[in-house]
């Protein structure tokens, strides 16, 4: 084995000098959350880097809803799941249909729709939230899961259409022509040719929409209020309102809430990084 030269050691040291602070900066808030989740109350507040008596008791309290802050934990977890999956499915349907229509069928006015979608994509989320809240009130949807689902679909669709349109423009036209020659109707073309070929992008977009809805705090906090209707992030936010917040349970719930998106992200990393970065900034 070749011994590293002094110059190589120097380069490596310089890289480590960047890498170690980056690692600490990245992990500290997450590790802190994890530390609280496995610490009994007295250890959590001691400022130690590892609890003297690590325990899974906090998870047990959360799962069995043994604290009055957590009495609706499973309902709220379920609400988050239902809303995220519905928003994901609906976004996927609406955006796939729109992208197919604009890119493959070249519907008149398609360019306009793309521009409108792009415009929506650029409206800062907190700015749209104010009028959206009133609109949902006018539609009679406040405190109804549909309000949050539809709000998430509104926010996710523009980007979804944008990415799917880019991807479907890359499919060769000859495929459509061949299928039409063989007598395929437009719907068959969509179902049997387009959707299968678009699968990787559809996975990326579906994941994106599900994560967006799962992670959403502001719209959920504005649109839903009843304890049995809110999603997990709103429940976490409500912990804050109390003076005697059980922080170790808050962090445990937060940790459980953060796990699915992290897991989904790593499972679909291959699709997501390519799909999302390509769409975000076309350079």
């Amino acid at each position, binding site marked *: 084995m070749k011994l590293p030269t002094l110059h190589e050691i120097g380069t490596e040291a310089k890289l480590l000098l960047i890498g170690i602070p980056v690692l600490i900066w*990245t992990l500290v808030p997450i590790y802190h959350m994890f530390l609280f989740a496995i610490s009994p109350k007295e250890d959590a507040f001691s400022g130690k880097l590892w609890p003297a008596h690590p325990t899974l008791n906090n998870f047990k309290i959360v799962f069995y809803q043994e604290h009055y802050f957590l009495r609706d934990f499973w309902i709220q977890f379920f609400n988050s799941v239902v809303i995220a999956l519905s928003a994901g499915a609906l976004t996927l349907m609406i955006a796939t249909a729109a992208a197919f229509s604009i890119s493959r069928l070249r519907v008149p006015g398609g360019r306009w*729709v793309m521009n409108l*979608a*792009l415009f929506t994509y*650029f409206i800062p989320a*907190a700015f749209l939230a104010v009028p959206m809240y009133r609109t949902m009130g006018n539609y009679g949807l406040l405190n109804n899961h549909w309000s949050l689902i539809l709000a998430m679909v509104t926010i996710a669709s523009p980007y979804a259409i944008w990415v799917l349109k880019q991807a479907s423009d890359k499919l060769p036209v000859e495929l459509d022509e061949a299928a039409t020659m063989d007598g395929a109707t437009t719907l068959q073309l969509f179902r049997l040719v387009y959707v299968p070929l678009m699968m990787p992008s559809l996975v990326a977009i579906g994941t994106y929409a599900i994560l967006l809805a799962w992670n959403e705090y502001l719209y959920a906090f504005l649109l839903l209020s009843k304890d049995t209707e809110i999603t997990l992030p709103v429940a976490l936010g409500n912990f804050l309102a109390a003076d005697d917040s059980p922080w170790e349970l808050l*962090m445990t719930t*937060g940790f459980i809430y953060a796990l699915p998106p992290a897991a989904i992200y*790593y499972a679909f990393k291959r699709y997501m990084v390519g799909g999302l970065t390509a769409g975000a*900034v076309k350079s």
Partner: protein
Amino acid sequence: MAITLSGDQAIPGPPLSARLTTPQVWGIVLLAPYILVFLAFVVYPVGYGLWLARHPASYAALWHDPIFARAAVNTLIFLLVGINLKMAIALFLSGFFAQQRTWIKWLSVLFILPWAVPSIPTILSVRFMLNPEWGVINQIIFKLTAEDGPNWLNDPTVALGMAIGVHIWKSLPFWTLILMTGRLAISHDLYEAAEVDGASWSQKFRYITWPSMQTLYVTCTLLSMIWTLGDFNSVYLLTGGGPADLTHVLATLGIRYLRLDQLSLAMASIVCALPFVLPLVYFMMKRLSR
């Protein structure tokens, strides 16, 4: 009379149904759901919101509300200091992560975490770390110096700085990743040629990296500005706009008015941001829809 009639009507074209081909009809049908969502949840709310913000009295009230002035200044600080700092770090780190090392690959997998996990639990975690009595940071300060650390979220300037820190923590991975994609697209030959000519690290950056990445960098900065204007979580979850409503940004201020049931003020505060937002949006749309 029959002659005048036929002259008036000229030759009737084929009916509309025949002019539209079947695929085009399907195109319209398939596009309709999105158009409906757009009309119902973008056009109507935005129009309605602008209508609510039509009274000049709201703007006068905003102008006299010191919290608004403070929020506007905070927003500017957030954008100018926070975003530029974030993008500069992202540009620097994109070079670090572009290095071919196994351990750097592993680090990049972890580095993505802040972006991949939802913001509420992590921001609350930071909030607790900054707690003056029980937070881990002040406990460490106490152990090292035997003095009490600062009350991080009690001084509005420090608290705003912390909120900017949280924002950077959360969104740095995304922009680093994007800039890294841009960096990896630069031809390796250029660097090899520069190496042969004995170019230094800073020369390579100045003459190769930066010119190739400048456009991408500017686009990313502008896009990040637009999105940061809508970043409610970093400020709200860390400081709640406090102490004494001095750390609000426009995103949290609008929601604050909304919660106080002052809807026209909420909309007016957003309308005040439009002169800054619309040019950015226009520029971005032009760049992306080429």
